[in-house]
């Protein structure tokens, strides 16, 4: 565009001015190129740090990924140590946390978007949900310790841990579900109303199915945040040495990030390799969950309105 501008000005104006103008244009072009390079550079920087991080972890830990690593409990001998308890714990936490946070979060989003009156207190609730989503995770740990561990006397059980993590991701689920519900066009609702549908029929029959891919994506991303979280679980007193797999929600547990933290802080070098191996497992798990999120979005977008 600047090229045609320059041509026009060259044709219309005397020669002296045209050189001035073309100088200005070439300066702009240079600026444009510089900005483009800068953008490229920042992307490269981000990618490089990711690649070095993953590369380093793979280099450190890949040779420690053996079958025994998945079948053994932790041990003081690095060669015999494994992540069985941590994997079981993480899977339990994954399901319990979503069982608690997903229905609650999605219902709250439906209420706020579809039913809540446009009043001051609703606005206030909305602002606070936003604030909660930005709260440091350790604060949720303290809440969990005071409420679930001490007051309800759940002790250091799976239930207490999952409820704490559920609280942590609840605001994120609410906000992402709200965004998904907002994206459903008004015309769809109006068409349903025109056919005589009641409000709940509109919400459950039209709005929710249409926003489901968006909701599921948000849910999966927030759950993957929950299983990578360490700080709140350490605060509520999740354990480092567990040599059994939990069988009920009242059992003690450990999770992958805590196991990683524990191994990484040991003095012996071999345990740092073990930590790297466990990080690989956690990364694979997270990549897999993100992949599901993308897949779900792709699949259901075919029915996009």
């Amino acid at each position, binding site marked *: 565009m600047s090229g045609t501008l320059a041509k026009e000005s060259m044709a219309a104006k005397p020669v002296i001015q045209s050189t001035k103008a073309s100088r200005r244009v070439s300066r702009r072009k240079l600026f444009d190129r510089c900005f483009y390079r800068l953008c490229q550079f920042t992307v490269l920087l981000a990618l490089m740090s990711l690649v070095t991080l993953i590369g380093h972890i793979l280099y450190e830990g890949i040779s420690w990924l053996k079958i025994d690593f998945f079948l053994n409990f932790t*041990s*003081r001998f690095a060669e015999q140590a494994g992540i069985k308890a941590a994997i079981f714990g993480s899977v339990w936490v994954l399901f319990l946390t979503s069982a608690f946070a997903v*229905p609650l979060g999605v219902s709250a989003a439906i209420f706020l978007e579809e039913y809540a009156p446009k009043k001051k207190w609703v606005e206030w609730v909305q602002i606070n949900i936003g604030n909660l989503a930005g709260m440091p995770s350790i604060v949720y740990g303290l809440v969990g310790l005071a409420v679930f561990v001490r007051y309800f006397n759940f002790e*250091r059980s799976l239930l207490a841990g999952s409820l704490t993590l559920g609280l942590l991701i609840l605001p994120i689920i609410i906000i992402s579900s709200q965004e998904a519900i907002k994206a459903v066009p008004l015309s769809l609702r109006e068409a349903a109303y025109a056919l005589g549908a009641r409000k709940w029929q509109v919400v459950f029959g039209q709005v929710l199915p249409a926003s489901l891919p968006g909701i599921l994506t948000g849910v999966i991303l927030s759950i993957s945040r929950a299983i990578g979280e360490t700080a709140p679980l350490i605060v509520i007193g999740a354990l480092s040495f567990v040599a059994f797999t939990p069988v*009920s929600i009242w059992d003690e547990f450990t999770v992958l990030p805590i196991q990683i933290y524990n191994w990484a802080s040991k003095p012996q070098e071999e345990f740092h390799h073990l930590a790297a191996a466990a990080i690989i497992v956690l990364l694979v798990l997270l990549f897999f969950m993100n992949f599901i999120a993308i897949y779900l979005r792709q699949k259901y977008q075919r029915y996009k309105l």
Partner: protein
Amino acid sequence: MFRKVSKILLVISLMSLSSCTKPSGQSSKQKVKIDGSSTVYPITEAMAEEFSKLNKKTMVTVGVSGTGGGFKKFLAGEIDINDASRSIKSKEQKVAQENGVKYLELPVAYDGISVVVNPGSFLTSLTVAQLKQIWESDSVKTWKDVNPEWPDRAIKLYGPGTDSGTFDYFKEVIVGKKGSFRSNFTKSEDDNMLVKGVAGDKDALGFFGFAYYEANKSKLKALAIAKDQTAPPVVPTRVTIQDGSYAPLSRPIFIYVNKKATAKPWVNEFVNFYFEKAMDTAAGIIKQVGYIPLNKNEYQKSLDDYKAFSKAEM
């Protein structure tokens, strides 16, 4: 599709709700709950590992909340055993009295707090007085401030966080219980960060448990410490820590057992196992995890003390 999903969601939410209203089930399982110091953790972890292999019915769990954090839980009756890298403080004893918690302190091993510098450092030994001078206040900034003959370069100090038992012990023996301690030094709860800091800086000085020094011997130099001007400086080794000549920085580390927990036979089994294994020099568990075992008689005494303690009336 959506109906199914919503039905599943409903069932799950009902399930989670119903499980929440269930009263906190007093699980009939045999549990030994341990928490506390990260310094004692490797020993207790090893004992719990061996014990779990032989006793499948008993579930032993070990957490790492630090000595102080562990005592809080211990005195609230939430755990059976606390790992402690220092003795119980008088403040904590008061809480114990208020809560009616009776306990027994059992030493499990020796640790030597190692004062370390970079292998390239000019320094090989310090006196306790010099250590005190360095750590007492923020006013010491360069080596020259400690000794006029030393270079005029800034000292970079590394130490564990103020919540750790290692910090408490170091403070107590170097600057005294009531003494002031400098605030300007790099603190980390993760001793590996301290190792990295000292290993990467010629003018660094740090302190942490012997196990971390031993695992990183090639990257660090442990300073010989002299009790006073006349005493010869002593380097921390397994021998000097065990015979007590590495003074005053060698210290015993403990487990504390709650009297109420002794009513559970599986806790008694575990504690007995702990000391029998520690005594077993052939297995050498204490050594394996980087600590210095006590004498056999001392372990035997702990066993006897525990027996009397567990049988005594409440």
